[in-house]
């Protein structure tokens, strides 16, 4: 993301300038708390309406809507469309949903960028949503098979034969898996192995978690989290604050037990994101359109890269791979960047990876290491550990936070990175 005032523009000849007009999100809440009765499209609608209100954008001015989500509610598999209809946006406006694990919202944003760049649309809302308070729990495969065959059974005796085949084991429900389908390993487990591979100590992780919560608390108290909307939850009142920020002491953090690899793992509840509900949205336009409509765009969206790696041993290392690539694409260096917003999923391992010549040469096929990422420019308003991580929505939060920080801190370039299941990453610049 590049702010408009410029020492050096990253605009490319022949490519349309695409701008971010505004970004918002619902408060991110611990799953099973206030959003308990909301379905995913309810949250998505709240973010969408909030964005329209904040920008006073007429409902008929939107050309297209893209949302990202991870665990899909089967009834609303195109959650973008359901949210749009619920928000009173014309039924003539198309919407689609994308999924790419934890970078689903980033994928939604880059999809929007593509639509604008290709001249298909001028005004696109992109966002993401996730609720872990409710998720589709299915009958077992065997039970589903029986039930589907039952549909086709014509006579009573056929039905009875089928029913008689049901065994107690058929009734075991199937939970949506948080494991990698290809490796059958949970993300936490993989992350713990990753921290061990990079020699990230328990102490370092605790300190980083402490930092994240403290910075988030400070930002919240100072009113810096201006992207957070106030949402009225029927019967439960208005929420306007994230409720997962828990600044505590290092002593308390040290007492926590590892959650994934027991008993000798290093990742604890504090150094991993809690299950979160929330939605986010950003308004993207072509620069001419934004100016024509009288908006003052907050930032340009310049470059992005998606990369992918081995889903077993390098699951969460996307940012390390993508950072140098996107910088080279834009022709700037790590030092030029003023604001870093990285998803806090195994960020420490990524920092160590980027600072290692061995890793650069052996795994990334580069001549030398990417470099030391200046931690004083990183996630200064908290991150996924403290604010929460609704899988599908985090990407848009990162982008909005980066833009708002650029404005506040007076920087020029921002870099956003996140890692995702399946080992991919996105980068906006």
């Amino acid at each position, binding site marked *: 993301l590049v702010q408009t005032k410029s020492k050096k523009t990253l605009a490319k000849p022949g490519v349309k300038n695409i701008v971010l007009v505004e970004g918002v999100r619902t408060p991110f809440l611990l799953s099973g708390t206030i959003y308990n009765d909301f379905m995913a499209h309810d949250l998505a609608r709240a973010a969408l309406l909030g964005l329209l209100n904040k920008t006073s954008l007429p409902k008929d001015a939107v050309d297209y809507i893209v949302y990202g989500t991870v665990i899909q509610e089967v009834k609303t598999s195109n959650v973008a469309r359901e949210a749009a209809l619920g928000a009173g946006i014309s039924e003539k406006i198309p919407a689609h949903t994308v999924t790419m694990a934890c970078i689903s919202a980033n994928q939604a944003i880059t999809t929007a960028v593509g639509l604008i760049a290709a001249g298909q649309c001028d005004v696109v809302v992109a966002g993401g949503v996730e609720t872990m308070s409710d998720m589709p729990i299915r009958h077992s495969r065997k039970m589903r098979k029986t039930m589907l065959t039952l549909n086709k059974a014509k006579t009573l005796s056929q039905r009875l034969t089928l029913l008689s085949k049901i065994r107690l084991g058929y009734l075991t429900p199937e939970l949506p898996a948080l494991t990698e*389908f290809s490796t059958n390993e949970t993300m936490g487990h993989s992350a713990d192995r990753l921290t*061990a591979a*990079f020699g990230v100590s328990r102490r370092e992780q605790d300190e980083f978690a402490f930092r994240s919560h403290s910075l988030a608390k400070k930002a919240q108290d100072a009113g810096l989290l201006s992207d957070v909307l106030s949402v009225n939850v029927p019967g439960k009142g208005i929420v306007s604050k994230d409720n997962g920020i828990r600044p505590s002491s290092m002593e308390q953090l040290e007492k926590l037990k590892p959650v994934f690899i027991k008993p000798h793992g290093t990742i604890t509840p504090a150094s991993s994101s809690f299950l979160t509900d929330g939605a986010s949205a950003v308004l993207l336009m072509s620069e001419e359109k934004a100016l024509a409509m009288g908006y003052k765009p907050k930032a340009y969206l310049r470059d992005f890269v998606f990369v992918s790696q081995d889903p077993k*041993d390098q699951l969460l290392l996307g940012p390390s791979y993508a950072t140098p690539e996107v910088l080279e694409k834009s022709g700037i260096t790590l030092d030029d960047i003023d604001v870093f917003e990285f998803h806090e999923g195994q960020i420490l391992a990524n920092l160590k*990876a980027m600072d*290692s010549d061995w890793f650069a040469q052996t795994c990334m096929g580069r001549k030398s290491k990417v470099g030391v990422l200046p931690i004083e420019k990183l996630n200064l308003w908290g991150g996924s550990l403290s604010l929460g991580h609704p899988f599908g929505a985090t990407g848009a939060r990162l982008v909005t936070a980066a833009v708002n920080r650029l404005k506040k801190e007076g920087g020029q370039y921002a870099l956003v990175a996140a890692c995702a299941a399946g080992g991919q990453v996105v980068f906006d610049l």
Partner: protein
Amino acid sequence: MDKIVSYRHKSISPIIICLHYSGSLNRIKPWFLRGCLLKLLPFFFLEAFRSHVSYEVKDDVAVIRINNPDSKVNTLSIPMQREMAEVMNEVWANGAVKSVVLISSKPGCFIAGADINMIQACRSAEEVTALSQEGQKMFEKIEKSPIPIVAAINGSCLGGGLEFALACQYRVATKSRKTVLGTPEVMLGLLPGAGGTQRLPKMVGLPSAFDVMLTGRNIRADKAKKMGLVHQLVDPLGPGLKDSDVRTVEYLEEVAVGFAKGIVNKSIPLTKRKGIMQKLQDYAMGIPFVRQQIYKTVTKRVMNQTKGLYPAPLKIIECVKAGLEKGSEAGYLEESQNFGKLAMTPESKALVGLYQGQVACKKNRFGTPEREVKNLAILGAGLMGAGIAQVTVDKGVNVILKDTATEGLSRGQDQVYKGFNAKVKKKSITSFERDTTMSCLTGQLDYSGFERVDMVIEAVFEDLSIKHKVLKEVEAVTPPHCIFATNTSGLPIKDIAAASKRPENVIGMHYFSPVDKMQLLEIITTDKTSKDTTASAVALGLKQGKIIIVVKDGPGFYTTRCLSPMLAELLRLLQEGVEPKKLDLLTTSFGLPVGAVILADEVGIDVAAHVGKTMTKAFGSRLDGGNIEVVTTMVEKGFTGRKAGKGFYIYEKGSKSRNINPAAEEILKKFKLSAPPSVSSDSDVQYRLVSRFVNEALLCLQEGILSNPMEGDIGAVFGLGFPPFLGGPFRFVDAFGADKLVQKMKKYEEVYGNQFTACQLLQDHAKDSSKKFYK
């Protein structure tokens, strides 16, 4: 076309004991199918400095590292044991050390077992017993260590290595695929002789201990944890700031040091809380009557499986029993004495010889080929073709499986899929690995893509004109460097190569059915086959995990040629009125993994008839036996063996019992011969079959088909099921006595003529008893 030997998996190995106790179903796995255990080591003399064991003290934990400087694996050799004792004494004397971590510096190997040369160098049972007792003493000291010792295991932890780990107070293992625990001694005709028979039952319970020791199978880390063999598991790490293997071992050490400290400050308990099932089992094992029943059941099973031909399993039971019933002192004594006795048995020597032969046959003595085979085409998607595809496609080789009809092709592809899917069910690979592997297999009906193929293996119908036809078709579409390998079981390779424009690229690759289970590959070279072609074929075979013998061309090469006279004799015995069931009993009690008649049914009566005719044509009356009309009549009636459901026996799906096929009996009656009483005792029946086999094997060496006796033994045991405890036909002649065998053959020769004429080589050995195939 299906090959000469097709055993069902279950019957391959007689030495494996399957233990079904309290519902624990343990799969039978042929022991030949598994990897190496003990490695040869050059003998080392005492040296002043320490080269095998080193240690450093981290905080108050002594980290002892094992690293044999001269080998890829660690073995418990004499210098290793001496240095270990020194280091332990230093550590125990150091008051600042509160605990110990024992770890290997070798990637992929903790300790692979005892040094087999050390045992082979002993001349008497007493010497071996003394070795065992030294080991016992050392591990006793470890067990009684005043400070806790944590064994940190990554890679193979086998035999003496496992016994060492068992003596430690705590065990941590990585979940790496290379990490396997086990006591493979039984496969070498030995027993765990350094306390294994005493500690295992206490640690994992009687039934599991018997299972581990009697099968000798490799146990993966997660299973070992479930059994109670190890306390904690550590995940292998991916590449980070260092190489994955290096970092994993470092991490294992860090975690083990953490546990060692934890044990000292009592935050880590040494004993696991037992579940209800465990408590119940312990209670049951406390009842002498229950234990007696277990001994009885296990002994019965061992006898069933081994026919009493293998002494080691019985000795293992004795040792365990002595320890539990008479106290540990008696147990340890029994263990060391039995270990000494076993090491001197011919069975153990034969099995060790086979092991060493197997190691030798896993090397490519023809050097590295100029070009690696990256794209392989297989012609014919039958049992053999698909089997070859299955063992190749998961080794990073792209495989084209070509057939002439969609039905055949689809059946073949299904066979490969089923093979990998079975591995998914056993959890040895993931469904994703199955899918990515399968994506390297292309099924097709035409020759498209053959321009990229480095080697073609044909497994089409066993008919010379068809072989010529495909050879010409293939040479027209493949690049000049492409090798043409034929998977024939009997046709001479030079006859097939006669149609080739590039005979230097033609070679025989004789696989055995089922390809994924049978370990042998017989490679056949003609005078024209180039050395590079041979090197390439061996390299591919090794990649496929095969044990390889390389033989010269000739009718039936080596394996088919040995089997053929035995089958001819079998037919004659049947005509002479010996019941099939009795023949099977006599042959299995001699040590064959399956009865000879069942073997004939498995091979296919039609195949046997075809091979019989070809061989008699090539070698004349010497290879005659029973009347070939018997089998041709059977083939006419459709009794082609197991595949048709009817041969000498009737095979019904889902039924395990086999009944005699009365119609086949009728045919045999029609061709009935009278049995000469002088050569028809049970023992004569056995030796008539075996002597023809053995004589033919020796003849192959005499004629230069075989390049050495060792390959002959390996081929007979791994390809044809020659009794492993006899070590193969050549070792059998050494042990049994060539003169005794010649005497027996003379007796048969008087009745049947030249079929029993001992070959020159055998006669030479009979005349001079100092002549041996193995020194």
